[in-house]
């Protein structure tokens, strides 16, 4: 197969003073070139932790990460430079991910120098090329982050990520802090770049409506587990997991047409439990209206109910 990234049985536990936090448990998925794989979930569901493990920022407690068939489960410091070039990340808050004391030029030149991608004379040209890709004027090279709007900062962060010509981009809520009119521009730019370069995207967001419009496949996480994984259209049109249905029925939409696409209203109840003290059995059972005896006792496994559609729920058990 031509998978770009394969994640198998990934786990991450953190030891804290209040106990062990099981942030990620048994997460598996694959991303293909040119594909946007979406990871949705509420806060504390572990979606960023997964992304950080892919980037090598956290060392997994268990499981494997393969990039183009090569095991990259080692921590960041031990990853070869060529590998770091291939995997890049864009964070949620461009205000804190860009150095305020460096000009846009310096910010964009850094990855080019670190990876020895172009020599001195070509640096200037390459910076301008990168600005072209994200549709920023060339004179922005001399500006400092504080002079840029939130959307423009995020465009610089995207340009920086593209500097090394990666094949996989991790996008961790890249537009959550921005207004929709600015989000639209960034999303369109990301979609165009992906088409031009066949990039794989690991796209993390809590915004399901946004996910519907960009992801090819979607996985939904809850308390460290993937609860459902399906091609985007199937995920939104035939959601199976009660959690997916509850989340989809809770999102506010702006037209009758969209209202009809939502599952029947499931009034959300309860709160997300603390990851230090997880409920026994299925972690969703305290909020699930379909919960039965078995859900309180046994954690369900992931089952493929139709091709490419996986669900972790006893309702769909054999």
């Amino acid at each position: 197969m031509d998978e770009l990234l394969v994640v198998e049985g990934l786990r991450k536990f953190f030891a804290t003073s209040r106990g062990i936090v099981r942030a990620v448990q048994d997460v598996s998925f694959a991303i293909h070139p040119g594909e946007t794989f979406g990871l949705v979930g509420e806060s504390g569901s572990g979606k960023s932790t997964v992304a950080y493990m892919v980037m090598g920022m956290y060392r997994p407690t268990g499981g494997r990460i393969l990039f183009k068939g090569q095991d990259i489960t080692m921590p960041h410091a031990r990853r070869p430079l060529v590998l770091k070039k291939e995997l890049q990340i864009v964070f949620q808050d461009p205000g804190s991910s860009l150095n305020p004391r460096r000009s846009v030029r310096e910010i964009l030149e850094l990855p080019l120098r670190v990876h020895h991608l172009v020599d001195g004379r070509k640096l200037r040209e390459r910076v301008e090329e990168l600005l072209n890709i994200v549709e920023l004027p060339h004179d922005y090279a001399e500006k400092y982050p504080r002079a840029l709007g939130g959307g423009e900062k995020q465009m610089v962060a995207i340009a920086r990520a593209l500097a090394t010509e990666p094949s996989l981009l991790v996008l961790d809520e890249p537009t959550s802090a921005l207004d929709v009119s600015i989000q639209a521009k960034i999303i369109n730019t990301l979609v165009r770049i992906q088409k031009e370069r066949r990039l794989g995207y690991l796209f993390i967001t809590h915004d399901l409506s946004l996910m519907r419009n960009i992801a090819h496949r979607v996985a939904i996480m809850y308390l460290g587990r993937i609860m459902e994984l399906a091609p985007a259209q199937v995920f939104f049109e035939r959601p199976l997991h009660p959690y997916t249905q509850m989340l989809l029925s809770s999102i506010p939409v702006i037209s009758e047409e969209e209202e009809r696409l939502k599952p029947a209203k499931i009034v959300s109840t309860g709160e997300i439990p603390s990851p230090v003290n997880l409920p026994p059995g299925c972690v969703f059972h305290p909020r699930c209206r379909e919960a039965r005896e078995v859900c309180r006792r046994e954690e369900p496994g992931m089952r493929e109910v139709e091709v490419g559609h996986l669900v972790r729920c006893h309702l769909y058990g054999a």
Partner: protein
Amino acid sequence: MPDVLLDVQDLVVHFQVYGGYLKVLDGVTLQVRHQERVGLVGETGCGKTTTMKTIMGILPKPPGVVRGGRILFKGRDVLSMRPQELEHLRRSGISMIFQDPTAALNPVFTVGEQLEDAIRYALGKRDHASVREVALSALQNVALPDPPRILESYPVQLSGGMRQRVCIALALACPKELLIADEPGTSLDVTIQDQILRLIHRLAEERKMAVILISHSLGVIREWTERVYVMYAGTIVEEARTGELFARPLHPYTEALMRCVPKLTGTGIAEGIPGRIPDYFDPPSGCRFHPRCPHRMDICRQRKPQLFPVDRGHRVACFLFGRDSHG
């Protein structure tokens, strides 16, 4: 309108900064009737919160300066109220809840200490037992489990959703006629946001209270309000009944904004709105949206459009829909 509870006319608010003034509010006009649920929608920095803080009389002055306009609450002029009258207004007239419940609660006092303080302040001095009783029932009203335990808790011991419920309990511990809810669930997850908005809706109905819901989310506004004001760069650009606005957005800004919202239908995402919100130090002349507007005409640069009526209750501040007597 005889049943108008809050009437804001042509409110102009500037902020004094080094080297001049930020001309933030440029003639905001809005009304809220008794028991009405009104939405105020607009993007970051458009002046939603400034408008509400001015209504509450909590706009910090300086740097804020009210340059013009009128705010009438039940026919009484809020802008000329003395401090005691403003206190009375906040005690028994209007309450506000904010986006970030963590910042709204004092971390070093228990929920009970803060709530009981608010109750003593609003109801005058009362003996400890009866204040506690009011506090417990306030927590019950916002559907918090185990109120005696919550009273003993510090804010840090509660989840984001629970803290927002505590803030609502604080705001509504005593009867109010208007609740201003400023992005009440924005920092929370959608399922929790949904619970908070449902709670506000229920309380407003039970207490026959009007609500101004401020949000940047068009979806939230559509689901929870009866009438909407759309705000752009310190001006109201459109007002309409909620159903009407979403069926027939008229102002070029409203229309563009709705196109930018990702839809569940999966029909892709529109191109966004070119440019960015204006610099309040030197805002565009005429219509503040004109530099970004695809339909701009000469007059848009020269004159500020008033709200032109196009249908019952539907008004649009755009020269595509009317000309003033001078034009």
